[in-house]
């Protein structure tokens, strides 16, 4: 069987093990695919042809010598541009870091290299991960492969679109309020936000330290599990990293794929369904619930009354942390330096640089955060938000006493049109309604495709949340739902995505990937 870019990462790993494909061939296939479609999708900010092929060649040499570094050795991957990569540009989607080449690898990146995964390049994102549409990237938006006029979600729209457009079998995302899960939902892909502290944040350029978490972006639940097993685990360089052994998420996904949900108790979050949610999103959600019930799960409704305040708490805590974090972009040690005319002081240079280097959304949030932390407002805003955070954690604790996992649709709507909400911050923020509570409480979550909404034919997502440290439940239930739905559909959901036009001169035609599946 010929391996193509449409295979899952697990299948590619098997083909490498069987010797029917080499890592160099796999990497070349993806680089060709990127050349053919990324002009239209714009998932990548930087593609590392040479580096990826060199890493692939090294993987092939290892394998020839009878050695592999991990189950995914030789399978290429894309990395969100918010993780530092030694020798590769890291911009965070911002002009203030244009051209910056970090002198060190993030721990996640170091682990990918140590596991033998060739890094294809860096993916597009909302500037400093602030956004839900990738339109706030200083380098232009990413387009949703399902409809190029629509948003791919955000902030990790580049990683999700790269995976959905078969430009990479795997990608890394980061999730501060839904930036892995919401792009997953609107692009028909899988995204996992691990337990806070489950994956190292060392080298992850911080948006909000207490909320940020890196995780897998893939096309299948098993692929996410394989990747999570590689990037997760304790890192002494991150003082918030959890120092305890984790079970195999790959095993959990394989167990779940049998589809048997006997004995699993699932809670539907009352506050995250109903009015204001798109009909097609709710219809696919209900069908997924029905399938899980048929597979043996017990489903009850669970109320988390404080969740209605999560969005407000988040948009105080996040800007507060972000305004402090982004103070480091001061034009002194790295990044952009704009020197005004005359004999400017360091402070003048900072002001001019931060005005020129930051986009609108970043400025909005820095100013909002500065306000929330000002004396006189601190108790009323930031202090209150931190207390609400406690209430949300208590809601989760109470809910998880009754059920094993909680579920909701991942996002209230399918992908909207590019530009539609760009200058309406509140409308944009509402996209993260269902994903934010998990970040505030530090619990893990996954988004799995639930089907296409009837009214627009676009993908919707099903979110599963588990207690902190119980990430394996996401994989068990996620893999079960995926396998039940795929049986109904008869093929993976992405097979229904329209074929992307290929740029002339690409040699992709030889792989036949666009035509053979439809």
């Amino acid at each position, binding site marked *: 069987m010929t391996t193509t870019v449409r295979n899952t990462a697990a299948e590619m790993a098997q083909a490498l093990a069987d010797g029917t494909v080499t890592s160099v061939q796999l990497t070349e296939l993806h680089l060709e695919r990127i050349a053919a479609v990324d002009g239209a999708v714009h998932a990548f900010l930087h593609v590392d042809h040479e580096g990826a092929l060199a890493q692939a060649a090294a993987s092939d040499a290892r394998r020839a010598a009878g050695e592999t570094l991990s189950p995914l050795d030789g399978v290429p991957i894309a990395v969100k541009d918010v993780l530092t990569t030694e020798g590769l540009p890291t911009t965070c989607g911002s002009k203030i870091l244009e051209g910056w080449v970090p*002198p060190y690898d993030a721990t996640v990146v170091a682990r990918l290299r140590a596991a033998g995964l060739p890094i294809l390049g860096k993916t597009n994102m909302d500037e400093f991960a602030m956004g839900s549409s990738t339109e706030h990237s200083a380098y232009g938006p990413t387009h949703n492969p399902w409809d190029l006029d629509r948003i791919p979600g955000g902030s990790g729209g580049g990683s999700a679109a790269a995976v959905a457009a078969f430009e990479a079998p795997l990608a890394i995302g980061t999730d501060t309020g839904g930036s892995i899960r919401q792009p997953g939902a609107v692009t028909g892909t899988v995204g996992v936000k691990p337990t806070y502290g489950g994956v190292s944040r060392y080298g992850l350029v911080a948006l909000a330290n207490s909320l940020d978490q890196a995780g897998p972006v893939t096309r299948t639940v098993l692929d996410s599990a394989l990747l999570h097993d590689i990037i997760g685990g304790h890192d002494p360089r991150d003082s918030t990293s959890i120092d305890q052994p984790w079970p195999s998420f790959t095993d959990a996904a394989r167990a779940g794929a049998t589809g048997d949900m006997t004995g699993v108790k699932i809670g539907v979050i009352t506050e995250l369904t109903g009015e204001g949610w798109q009909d097609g999103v709710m219809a696919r959600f209900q069908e997924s619930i029905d399938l899980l019930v048929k597979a043996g799960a017990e489903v009850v409704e669970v109320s988390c009354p404080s969740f209605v305040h999560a969005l407000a708490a988040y948009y105080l805590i996040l800007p507060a942390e972000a305004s402090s974090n982004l103070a480091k972009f001061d034009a002194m040690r790295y990044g952009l330096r704009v020197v005004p005319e005359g004999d400017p*002081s360091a402070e003048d240079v900072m002001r001019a640089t931060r005005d020129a280097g930051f986009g609108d959304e970043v400025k*909005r949030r820095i100013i909002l955060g500065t306000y929330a932390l000002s004396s006189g407002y601190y108790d009323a805003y930031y202090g209150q938000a931190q207390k609400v955070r406690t209430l949300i954690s208590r809601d989760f604790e109470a809910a998880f006493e009754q059920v094993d996992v909680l579920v909701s649709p991942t996002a209230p709507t399918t992908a909207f049109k590019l530009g539609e909400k760009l200058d309406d911050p509140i409308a944009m923020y509402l996209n993260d309604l269902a994903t934010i509570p998990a970040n505030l409480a530090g619990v893990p979550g996954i988004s799995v495709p639930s089907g296409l909404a009837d009214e627009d034919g676009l993908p919707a997502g099903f979110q599963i949340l588990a207690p902190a440290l119980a990430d394996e439940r996401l994989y068990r239930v996620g893999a079960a739902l995926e396998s039940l739905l795929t049986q109904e559909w008869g093929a993976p959901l992405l097979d229904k995505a329209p074929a992307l036009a290929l740029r002339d001169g690409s040699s992709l035609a030889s792989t036949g990937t666009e035509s053979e599946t439809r």
Partner: protein
Amino acid sequence: MPEITRDEVAHLANLARIDLDDAELDHLAPQLSVILESVASINGVAGDDVPPTSHALPLTNVFRDDVVTPGLTVEQALSGAPEVDQQRFSVPRILGDEQ
């Protein structure tokens, strides 16, 4: 209802060290008022008996052994600097005219 005036935005931008021109102030001030209005709903939600959470997981005092580990070389540390002088970051004058 909380409202954030154009002057307040200018003051906050000054604190945050961002030069905002008139057009940006005109654009941002009303948007920030709308955002603030919507997050103000949080007032009074949690009573005095609710402790604040700064961090989702209860971790305190994470120490490591006091051993030397390799760090960046001078060249690496300076590799992204806008200006370098004698193996140091070179910065504009730090005192203003009035100091």
